[in-house]
């Protein structure tokens, strides 16, 4: 069990300076200092025609933020005031409840789920992956039925649709493939028609190099990631599929440092994970400006201890994974980061935007035809972390355990919201990432001081580039390697 010294939830700005704070160890609970304070009275009147002094008016962003902060502060103040025993109970992961919630949904869902009728492989993935993180094995019949169902979603000409008979779609193909890899049986893995899937993905390629989601569908970074992840995982990624994707993704990195869904759109946690992971799988990560990406993600963790998806937006449990995994990935990219920092600060003169996507210093331009793409994902995970986590891994666990868990089972966006399968999957994935983020080469498992709550909270580790449980990834990697050697 982890012993943590907990601080008061509310700490005022004025007191921050006089506070003598231990520098050796981060406080387990981040402060609840208001990040978007109302404008000071003296500077209140900023309106152009402001002849009359108005009282400071809070904007929509400020009001919404304050509501969430108050709600979260209330939860944390209960924790900080609690007796040690109560604290450890509060910080427990409610495994049984989550297992029950996820297992139940795998069979039958209420009529209101008809809005997700074109996302059924996603429902499978959210539940199956969530259960795998919780080390829960499915019974053979259920596994068999999932494999059977997903085969019915598989298009004759390749790719998986959102349900039987639906048009094949890259995102549901990703969900289906990740589900089958997580099940991991021979019948599950061999049910994927890789040749057809490859042809489907090639058809989804736009002349820009990016992918569209489905025939006539939208082009964005999400489509690029799901295509590249699936192709890499199944060992069918080649130059033809890879060509131009990296340049498109690099064009989506914004002035803020994060990655947007399309060029010029706003930096966003989901797309930042997708873009970064795809770039690593393509071995073109040098085309991104990594220091600015890291800086942007690090600032997305807020006083609530969880991550927000965009600057000045509200915290949301699902970004525990999208942002948390993105910044955790960079722990293995320090060689590139150091190089980029050196380059960008060595010349004090105007350096243009050579770091921001126009450079062709990546490997893509000089690729030979025999690049072993699947190896990039494999080698990446075998590499050890070059530094510790660049986010507050304990604080993130605190948000997930205290603010995202629902007592009846399942996890949610934030207090006041309902649980759902999507948030359950990504809160648990984020929890796993943060538990393992401080591992070094010499550890065989996370040390108790890197985990919040009892050690029984420990989840299975994932391969963060694909978001499948690591053991399952290893098996699938072997399986598809061997089938290609036959």
């Amino acid at each position, binding site marked *: 069990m982890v012993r943590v010294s907990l601080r008061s939830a509310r700490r005022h*700005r004025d007191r*921050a*300076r006089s506070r003598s704070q231990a520098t050796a160890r*981060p406080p387990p609970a981040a*402060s609840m200092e208001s*990040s*978007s304070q109302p404008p000071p009275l003296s500077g209140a009147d*900023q309106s152009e025609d402001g002849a009359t002094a108005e009282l400071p008016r809070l*904007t*929509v*962003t*400020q009001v919404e933020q304050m509501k969430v902060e108050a709600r979260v502060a209330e939860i944390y103040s209960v924790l900080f005031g609690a007796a040690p025993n109560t604290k450890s109970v509060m910080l427990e992961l409610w495994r049984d409840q989550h297992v029950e919630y996820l297992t139940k949904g795998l*069979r039958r*869902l209420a*009529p209101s*789920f008809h*809005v*997700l*009728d*074109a996302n*059924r492989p996603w429902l499978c993935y959210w*539940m199956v992956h969530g259960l795998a993180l919780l080390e829960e094995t499915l019974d053979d019949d*259920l596994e068999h*039925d*999932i494999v*059977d*169902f997903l085969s*019915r979603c598989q298009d004759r000409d390749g790719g998986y649709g*959102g349900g*039987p*008979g*639906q048009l094949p779609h890259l995102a549901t193909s990703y969900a289906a493939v990740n589900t089958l890899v997580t099940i991991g049986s021979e019948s599950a893995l061999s049910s994927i028609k890789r040749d057809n899937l490859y042809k489907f993905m090639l058809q989804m390629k736009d002349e820009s190099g990016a992918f569209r989601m489905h*025939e*006539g*569908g*939208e082009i964005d970074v999400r489509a690029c990631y799901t295509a590249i992840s699936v192709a890499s995982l199944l060992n069918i990624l080649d130059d033809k599929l890879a060509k131009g994707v990296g340049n498109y993704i690099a064009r989506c990195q*914004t*002035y*803020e440092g994060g990655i947007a869904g*399309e060029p*010029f*759109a706003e930096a*966003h946690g989901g797309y930042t994970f997708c873009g970064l992971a795809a770039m690593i799988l393509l071995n073109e990560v040098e085309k991104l400006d990594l220091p600015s990406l890291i*800086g*942007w993600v690090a*600032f997305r*963790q*807020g006083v609530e201890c969880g991550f927000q998806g*965009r*600057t*000045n*937006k509200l915290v949301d449990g699902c970004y525990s994974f999208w942002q948390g995994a993105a910044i955790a990935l960079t722990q293995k990219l320090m060689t590139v980061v150091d190089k980029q920092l050196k380059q960008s*600060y060595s010349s*004090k003169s*105007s350096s243009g935007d050579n770091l*921001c996507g126009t450079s062709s210093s990546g490997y893509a331009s000089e690729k030979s035809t025999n690049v072993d793409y699947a190896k990039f994902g494999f080698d990446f995970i075998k590499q050890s972390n070059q530094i*510790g*986590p*660049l986010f*507050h891994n304990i604080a993130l666990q605190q948000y997930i355990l205290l603010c995202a868990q629902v007592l009846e089972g399942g996890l949610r966006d934030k207090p006041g919201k309902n649980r759902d399968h999507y948030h359950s999957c990504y809160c648990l994935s984020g929890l796993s990432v943060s538990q393992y983020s401080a591992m070094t080469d010499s550890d065989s498992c996370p040390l108790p001081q890197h985990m919040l709550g009892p050690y029984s909270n420990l989840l299975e580790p994932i391969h963060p580039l694909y978001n499948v449980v690591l053991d399952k990834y290893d098996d699938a990697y072997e399986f598809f390697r061997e089938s290609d050697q036959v």
Partner: protein
Amino acid sequence: MGSSSGEEEGTNKWVPPSQRPELADVVPVGQDDGPCPVVSISYRDDFREVMDYFRALYSAGERSPRALHFTAEAIHFNPGNYTVWHFRRLVLEALDTDLLQEMNFVDQIAESNPKNYQVWHHKRWLAEKLGPDAANSEHEFTRKMLAIDAKNYHAWSHRQWVLQALGGWESELQYCNQLLEEDVFNNSAWNQRYLVITSSPLLGGLVAMRDSEVDYTVEAIMANPRNESPWRYLKGLYKGDNYLPVADRRISDVCLKVLKDDSTCIFALSLLVDLLRMGLQPSDELKGTIESMENCDPETSHVDLATAVCSILQKCDPLRISYWSWYRTTLS
């Protein structure tokens, strides 16, 4: 083939497809979920029946008015069904239909499903076909949607696409001003502003706009120093350039001014580290301000200024303590 039936726009009672004369020749196709389905949704009868008829028309590839009509019904039941939307586009193309009417149709769906990928993609497809004439009405529509949710990602992406593909830049900077006046914390509006000043064909680009933008941004920072958006925007104005932000005194001045009032403002401290790293020669005043902040910690008094600011950040930004510790190591 008749295109209308008893299910017209809510005026009449909904008639199940199986009881509609104009669908009498269609054999519904059930969903092939297998003997032991998983993630099985307990569909309501009307939903199931509509989808069974949709599947029949879709698999027959029927490009007819009744197929068009029927896709509308399936979309009302589940606007997230991309297969239905895709089929609808095929039918629209085959029938040579009125695209403005189609735009009205999708706008209605978008209003009740503002965060749905399919509706926005459909709008983009239509707007592309309609061409530059559609720019104004599309801008009006996204304006309306952003009035409800000023950070709707889809609405912003659509607006940006319309600007770049069809035009309508004339009042865009003014629109950004307006949104930022309403909520200066709206990062989507700052992001839009960045697009406008870098890409609007009417403004001359980033270099031409930079000077006045720095003034605008500094003012926004001074009004709300703990608003991260303008700080990021300010850095963005000098993206990829190490010389200009250092040479422009307004940048280091804003850091100094803010820190005098609020010595723990992490955005000011953070920008300051970057400036020092880029070679900023600190004024005596700046040096003094930083030294007075770090005085509480004698351990840092002998290090260079960037490192000193990093150690201040390690203290006043505990959530990012490991980030700042790492960043500090990269300074040398």
